[in-house]
């Protein structure tokens, strides 16, 4: 803007419509110079490797710089889609997303609505406490929960035994392990989501509920018909983030606590990718899997953006 504005005015005043090439270059140069570092790093570490992943998917390569890449056609894709573990990993990914939504949307929305009615001081205290797990580093979170859920002497199992229930081997039992990973991820996300929804609520114009209340609307009607629709952009943002990031959020916990086991019960699509890439040194396979999952998530994201444009209710 610092450079462009006089030129833009000149154009509207009816001078020759296109400024000369040098003038245009001069307009381009400063912003591009400021953008250069960001674009360079994005190219080097995001977009070029993305292209390379796509390229790798048509080769066989064991990650050693000295060994040759051999063309593989579409074999890698056939192998990915025919992989026996794939079904389980995709299913688990869906389970992770759906099971984390209560922790990132439902409970936070309920909590934020309840917290509104409390005096500011106690509300701040509760929020500060609920937020704290967000700050725990993933490795420490994994360590603490492994101790809490320890089958022989962990406090959770001691409590279960005291209540007369059978102790559970949470992280080794294929029926419970995925639930344990979900619980730990939910624990670390809950406070953040609550904070975001509270901020969304605080941004809603008070005039609308006040007007509705004068017209005789009940409290529940106000929440359902006014507050929640106005909150929908925030909620949709959280749903989208949960969908796209739950695979990544659960990744460190899976890596440290279960390595995808027992028997694939806690693996997800990216953990599968990690294992094939770095355990089996199969870059072509990982490339094909990466391409498939990336396109899959991209389609889901596009669907979401389309849906959120249809469903969001804005206070214009």
């Amino acid at each position, binding site marked *: *803007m*610092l450079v462009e504005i006089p030129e833009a005015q000149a154009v509207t005043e009816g001078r020759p419509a296109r400024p000369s090439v040098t003038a*245009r270059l001069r307009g381009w140069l*400063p*912003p591009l110079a*400021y*953008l250069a*570092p*960001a674009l360079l*790093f*994005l190219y*080097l*570490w*995001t977009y070029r*490797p*993305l292209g*390379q*992943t796509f390229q790798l998917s048509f080769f066989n390569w064991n990650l050693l710089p000295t060994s040759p890449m051999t063309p593989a056609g579409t074999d890698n894709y056939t192998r990915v889609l025919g992989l026996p573990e794939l079904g389980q990993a995709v299913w688990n990914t869906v389970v992770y997303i759906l099971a984390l939504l209560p922790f990132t949307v439902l409970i936070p929305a*309920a*909590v934020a609505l*309840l*917290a509104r*009615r*409390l005096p*500011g001081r*106690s509300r701040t205290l*509760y*929020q*500060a*406490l609920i937020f*704290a797990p967000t700050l*725990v*580093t*993933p*490795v420490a*979170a994994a*360590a*603490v929960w492994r*101790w809490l859920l*320890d089958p022989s002497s962990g406090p959770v199992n001691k409590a279960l035994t005291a209540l007369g229930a059978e102790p559970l081997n949470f992280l080794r039992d294929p029926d419970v392990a995925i639930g344990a990973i979900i619980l730990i991820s939910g624990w670390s996300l809950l406070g953040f*989501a609550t904070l*975001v929804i509270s901020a*969304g609520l*605080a941004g*809603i114009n*008070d005039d609308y*509920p006040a007007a509705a*209340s004068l017209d005789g609307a009940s409290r529940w009607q106000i929440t359902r018909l006014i507050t929640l629709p106005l909150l929908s952009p925030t909620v949709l943002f959280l749903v989208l983030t949960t969908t796209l990031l739950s*695979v990544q959020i659960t990744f460190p916990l899976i*890596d*440290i606590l279960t390595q995808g086991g027992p028997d694939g019960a806690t693996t997800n699509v*990216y953990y599968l*990718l*990690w294992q094939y*890439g770095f355990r089996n040194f199969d870059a072509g396979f*990982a490339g094909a899997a990466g391409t498939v999952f990336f396109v899959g*998530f991209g389609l889901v*994201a596009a669907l979401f953006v389309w849906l959120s444009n249809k469903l969001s209710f*804005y*206070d214009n």
Partner: protein
Amino acid sequence: MPLAVLAAPEPVADEPTQGPPPAEPGQKPVGENTRRRSVAGHVVLAVLALFAIFPIYWMYATSVRAPEDVLDTSPLPWPLSFASYEYVWQVLPIGKLLVNTFVVAVCTSIAQLLVALLAAYAFAAWQFRGRGLLYLAVVGAWLVPFQVTMIPNYAFLNELGLLNALAGVVVPTVCSTMAVMLLRQHIQAFPRELLDAARMDGRTSWGTLWTVLVPNLRPALASLSILLFISAWNDYFWPALVLQRTDSVLQIGIRGFLSAEGDNWGAVMAASGIACLPIFVLYLVLQRQVMDAFVRSGLR
């Protein structure tokens, strides 16, 4: 749209979640109903706060129990003992891990802040052809997951000789999409008259950035740098990919310790407690700013 109100830069003191409670229009001033609702609110929030805080409390409680009491489930650790910390100090190069993690987090957050500030300035203060497309390229990077690009990145780091080097953790993360998006919002909301006035004074765009924009964006920059520092401190993916040695950063050192020490819970909890401590201290001192920073990152 409600989000725009929150996303606009405002002094940190005006943090939206901490203000006085919004007027409750439907609420009759006194009444049994209101009190019952407020009690229900307290109960639900207290239960959730307990669920959130108990694991953290238990981590520190276990870490200060005497070695023979580690499996104890009494809620208060007594007598206190720092034997676990002494053991961790001897077994793990904890000082080196802390220093390395700190160096990585500081370098990462400063580099991210600088690169994002320049990029956001370009996006917010100039009109140029292809701006929308380039901005889309920056935002789109958010959709490219780490795991999809990790193998080419691993090979590239190897070519550069950065595997097992701390720089290998910093360099790939220098461009932070989130930082660019947040700073762009802040600069867009900055009064244009001030930028124009600086230009008429004959200042260069570079001079305007550092003498007009940066001093005025200080609260936003501070809150963003807190967020970037915490994210860098807690990052798991890049260290796990780049660093194999267990004396590199906390994430990797403690992961190794966890698999080596297994059920030595006192020591494992002490090590984990040390890894979280700097962030918790930051949180205790700058609680408002930390929460504010996270809220802003969540409202895009």
